[in-house]
């Protein structure tokens, strides 16, 4: 089982690095969708056997992260007439390099933090830390507001990956609550982007700078 989990983790790492190196927003959104689908399989792989609860959770996650989020984001792009370029402050290749360095850092950090329990040897913790970093880096290093939503989703996905592997029996209500919150967050951000676009005629975060001091 755990080698399958590590396989999924490697795919997650690759999607993140691809996200850092991609110059088209629509492609970024598709990468995030792929990430969501891969993520959805994790609870199934981590669980001992396939229960109704796991099946429900997997379906909900795949639908939400693989279908609904991309749809919301693409809709926001269309409605707000966002240009397709990512417009980074940090170049693509350099971003990938930073991502690679942070991966090394995450692995190093996670080694000082051995997980108790059966999932001790898996990549869960380093990948979670890595995805948090990549998400934050995406938020900071990209000019468009929509990239910040993508960054937020990556951060959230990283934690979800960790949670799916570590906690096999969290009450379903809590997990659904978390999923609902994340869904609303992405929805609200999408709406906010639309309003920002209408008010400012642009989507560049670096121009949101009237409030300071």
């Amino acid at each position: 089982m755990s080698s399958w989990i590590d396989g999924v983790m490697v795919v997650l790492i690759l999607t993140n690095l691809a996200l850092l190196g991609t110059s088209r927003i629509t492609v970024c959104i598709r990468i995030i969708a792929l990430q969501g689908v891969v993520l959805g399989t994790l609870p199934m792989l981590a669980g001992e056997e396939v229960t109704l609860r796991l099946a429900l959770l997997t379906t909900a996650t795949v639908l939400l992260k693989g279908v609904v989020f991309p749809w919301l984001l693409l809709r926001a792009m269309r409605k707000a007439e966002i240009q397709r370029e990512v417009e980074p402050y940090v170049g693509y290749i350099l971003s990938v390099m930073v991502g690679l360095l942070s991966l090394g850092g995450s692995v190093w950090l996670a080694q000082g933090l051995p997980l108790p329990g059966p999932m001790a040897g898996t990549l869960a913790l380093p990948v979670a830390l890595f995805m948090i970093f990549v998400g934050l880096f995406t938020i900071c290093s990209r000019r468009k507001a929509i990239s910040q939503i993508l960054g937020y989703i990556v951060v959230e996905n990283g934690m979800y990956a960790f949670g799916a592997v570590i906690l096999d029996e969290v009450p379903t209500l809590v997990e659904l609550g978390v999923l609902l919150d994340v869904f609303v967050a992405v929805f609200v951000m999408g709406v906010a982007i639309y309003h920002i676009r209408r008010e400012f005629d642009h989507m560049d975060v670096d121009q949101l700078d009237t409030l300071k001091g």
Partner: protein
Amino acid sequence: MNEMAIFWLLLLLPTACAGLCLLLRSPQAIMRVVGAGALCQGAVGAAAALKVLRGGQAILSSNGWFNLDALSAFHLLVMMIVFSLSSLFAWGYFHEEMSEGQLRLRLARRFGALWFGSMAAMTLVLISNNLGILWVGIEATTLLTAFLICIHRTAASLEAMWKYLIICSVGVAFAFMGTLLVAASTAGVLPSDEALLWTRLVASAGQLNPMMLKAGFLFLLVGYGTKAGLAPMHTWLPDAHSQAPAPVSAMFSGFLLNSSLYCILRYLPIMEGGAGMAGWGPRLLLLFGLVSILVAAVFIYFQRDVKRLLAYSTVEHIGIMAVGVGLGGAGAAAAMFHMLNHSIAKSLTFFGAGRVGQHYETHEIGKIQGMLRSCPAWGAGLFAGVLALIGAAPFAIFMSEFQVLKAAAGSHSWWTLGLFLGGAGMVFMGALRHLIAMAWGDPSITRVQRTGWLEGAIVVVPCLALLALGIWMPQGLQDAVRQAAAVIAGGKP
């Protein structure tokens, strides 16, 4: 009353009010529901809180999901005070805009629904015994309050809303990671469906994996600390507070931040109980608290906008609470008392700043002069409120800050004492400088603001309360504060 009924009533009442606000057909009616609903909710919440605080016995629901102990009851009480005051004030604040037709029905509906919705979410945070649900509640407050900031849609308010949304969502996501790490620390100790129940975690804190707990607490402190406005994660706070309508700012400062700090406090007894970590968590909190006080002091001194000034003052006061809790013992009790005082005073000042700002049509300190003459009621309220906030003597905040100082001296933390005094002194000078400039001088507007009896009461009652608490602290309140502090110390789970 059945214990489950209390919890469901606390949650469903605001939800029902939110639904009602969406159905009503006039802004006036919605504002009336906001006032009346908040009072009802206040009464229920206060009754539940008092029951716990009087009886000294926590109410734990039979399935273990809800828990109302002294700490949450005390927070609930403070929240009900802030909410009732803010809701009543909202009626007066939006009155002019409603009569001028600026506040459309759609916006009023949105305000009402989100207002009650965030109230329900915060109640959920306070009564939840499941740390996962706790997180869900905090994240929900972020999302529900985001659009409250830009009820008046301007470029600046949208900017503030976006910053609030992104910074707090990502920050609170960190807290989720922390929650997961804490849950991971229970591997082999607790059955996994109980891994997130606070009562179980506190009871078995000694056996949890200390490394996981430490890592988790770091994430939690940064995550919830972002929402609580601890420096250096406070950057969203002045923007959001300065752009939101005054009742929303009051609710943010008076309670939203407390509820996030409350989440950190919930984890302290687990940290303290963990093997070989006594004092580690509180010391970290203390550090963040001191940084917040000093950062806020600098920004207050050079501030030009009155609402931003109040926002930074909130950063300072959250810092003071963190310092108090970080000192532990008498400091924690002082911090709880301070929270009550700060919430009352900060609501009052935001009300005042909002109404004075409406009258002058600006929030710039340089353009507001002679407010005592042109806005007699709210000018005086703002004046008294800021005096209370900076720790002028007869008011209650002076007392609670003094108690925190005493706790610092008692534990021989001279550095803490010195930095706290330095920061508070700088805030005192800086804010007083701005306050005097605003209070006196020739008003640029000859028109005098008129206020009704309700608004008069909203000014007078908090002022009197602050004065009274500064001079005499009733026995019941002392007990409540002590009990809440005992929960933080892990004495009474």
